[in-house]
């Protein structure tokens, strides 16, 4: 027993760390995270889809919609319209935005930024 303890004090088993340094989101080889959300959206795609949602809103003139447009100042909408647009965006990207945060989204720019940074947008 004493011998075992003495041996164990001097021998160290080299610990091998797993070579999992790559991005776990990217499906590589045999590793597949069953619950992971790996279809991350690029910023261009987010911008395209946000703009198409805003353009298809009935009260909006599609030719005036650009990525920098402000819902109320530039598009002539009122606050309830922008609530409706944010709800349409939530449905488009399968998101659930908390009420207080959704209330702050008042322009295309902010919407694109928020959705692009949201980990579960799809």
């Amino acid at each position, binding site marked *: 027993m004493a011998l075992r303890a003495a041996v164990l004090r001097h021998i160290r088993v080299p610990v091998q*760390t*797993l070579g*999992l340094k790559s991005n*776990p989101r990217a499906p590589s080889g*045999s*590793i*597949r*995270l*069953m*619950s*992971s*959300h790996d279809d991350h959206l690029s910023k261009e795609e987010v911008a395209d889809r946000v703009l198409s949602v805003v353009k298809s809103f009935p009260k909006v003139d599609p030719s005036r919609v650009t990525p920098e447009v402000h819902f109320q100042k530039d598009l002539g909408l009122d*606050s*309830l319209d922008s*609530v*409706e647009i*944010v*709800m349409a965006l939530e449905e488009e990207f*399968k*998101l*659930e935005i908390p*009420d*207080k945060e*959704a*209330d702050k989204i008042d322009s295309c720019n902010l919407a694109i930024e928020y959705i692009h940074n949201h980990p*579960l947008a799809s």
Partner: protein
Amino acid sequence: MSVVAAGYLARRTAQKERVRILYRRALKDTLNWAVHRHLFYEDADLLRARFETNKHVEDLDTIDRMIADGEAQYNKWRHPDPYIVPWAPGGSKFTRNPTPPEGIEILYNYGREDND
């Protein structure tokens, strides 16, 4: 005088935010109650019309009373089983198969090397 004006503006801003959030929740609840999408569009128009009828009310106390009344109606008619996005708290996919912690790897071919 400016204090009064500032107080008025602050109260007005708070009321506007309350109305926006009330409208947002009510609109979502309308979608929960609607069985079909085309039914939702009509109900949403009715809801919007109810908000629009009181658009030009100026008196602050009346507005407060109307908002409280609207919130009470919303709470009364709230859907018992609303739609929740699957990954959100309360959703069907919430914390299902959480991502393993950093450094943990799952070996899907475990034991296969012995049988080859």
